[in-house]
């Protein structure tokens, strides 16, 4: 959550955050998000997953798969 908030310069962030609702979540934002998530959680997010990751729920799902 905090990562999304800082990265996309949001005042508030909730679970409904997604590429559609968030102005700064464009392709460059996506890139920065991947870099931040990888270093924060020590995982490698694969290109296919980068393509699928369009909302907060997607992020959580992908991270859960990685970390379980």
């Amino acid at each position: 959550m905090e990562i999304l908030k800082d990265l996309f310069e949001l005042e508030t962030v909730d679970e409904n955050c997604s590429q559609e609702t968030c102005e700064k979540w464009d392709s460059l934002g996506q890139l920065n998000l991947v870099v931040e998530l990888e270093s924060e959680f020590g995982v490698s997010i694969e290109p296919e997953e980068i393509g699928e990751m369009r909302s907060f729920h997607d992020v959580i799902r992908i991270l859960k798969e990685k970390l379980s």
Partner: protein
Amino acid sequence: MSYFVFRNNTVESFFPKGYVFSGYDDISVIPENASAYVWFYQATLGFDQSALENTLRGYREKFSFVLGRIGPDKPFYVLTMEELYAVPFTEDDKRVRRAIGEYNDCLWDAGRTHTNVKVLDFSAFIRRYPNDEAVDWKFYFVSQMGINPRLAKDFRVWWDRKLESVALKRKKCLVLDLDNTLWGGVLGEDGVSGIRIGGDYPGKAFRFFQEALLELSRTGVILAVCSKNNEADVLEAWGKNPYLVLRKEHFSAYRINWTDKASNLRELAEELNIGLDSFVFVDDNPAEREIVRQMLPMVSVPEFPRQPYELPLFFKKMVEDYFTVYTVTEEDRKKTEQYKANAARVRAQQAFTDFGSYLESLDIRMSLEEADDFNIPRIAQMTQKTNQFNLTTRRYTDSDIRRFLSEGWKIWCLRVSDRFGDSGITGCIFFDGTTIDTFLLSCRILGKGIETAFLKYALALLREQGVVSVEACYVPTAKNSQVSGFYERCGFSLKAEEPGGAKRYSLALQDADLKTDKYYHITSR
């Protein structure tokens, strides 16, 4: 509009917010309202050597095209190219490497022939990392990132430091401890010939460090010593130990005593007339470093290596962090001598009771020079670095100054010498029409009435050209309070005082007293 970046890869995350980017490999748009331009092309990644060679040649042509279309008063920051991924199928095929070399040569040439072009050595940045980390292929294929995005944060730090070095901002004075910092061992215990300097390790490492510091001082960084020792012992060591590289004459000032280092640093700052925020303090003792950090948070205090063999890397990092500057002017090279000549002047002053006869004895020669290609870098540097005797503290680059001249401003700089030495170019005055935009003098020539003589003489030159009155202003900063009443003392009348403390003045030239005292031998050209 802000900085505009020409690029051929995804590099947005490498630059601060607000930068604007060209399309990939696109030079069709060159926005005229950008405040500065950046050229950041990276080597294309691929396998067909002759195709790569051709692409690089194309980049050179594109660069030349853009260079020809950017105004000479707009800063143009150009990054060099580095081979990030090479799979040479035969060892002797160096075509791409050669083409990259030629591309970089083309950039460096532009830097030599165009004053607005500053070449920043990207290779020096990327070489800090293992070659295999330079590119992250996942991000290359997904987002066309030519460089690993994980390096972005480090790159932004490097970029900021580089822009500062181009603006000629750096620390001015390096204060050094002696025992176990400039030599191994403790002088008071080991004696003049017992300290480790030169010869075998660890003396070899300390001598290497001293040689490095000597060269640093030749670029205009002032060296000083702050050490807990007996002064007589140190003077003896400087005089007698044949392996020392740095001796008494290399230090502009020193404090060798048993007083605490924070007090000594304050005294050094006063004696050298340099702000403490321009100091870097190097000491092997963590307790001393901590005290200075606590008492004088504006002083930079780098960590000191535990082992003498780590000194070369420590030195490299220290220079990168505090002392790198894009070019060095003639004045910088002479700085140590000038600060020492100043000390001699202070001593001469003590011998005279009458200030006038002291000034006369100095044989002060002042010469006003109009801004030209040779002195503009120095003038820009003074606007960037002068804090105390600076009426408006406006920071300008050499491109700014060239633009002012093209707009008809009158800009003079001041060269001062006396019987103790040549202080070089140490002051300047900018007239935007009849308004004094900038008036500043380097602190090391103050205390001789030169500031008033300089101002009067410049105003007299304007009067000869038919100017009847001038306006001026004082803009307060944290450091220039000593000049808050300067224009009043020169006979200007105060017109307005703003809430923030800024003051506006004017002076009618026809009745103004613009005669300068006979002690000053002033010429202009």
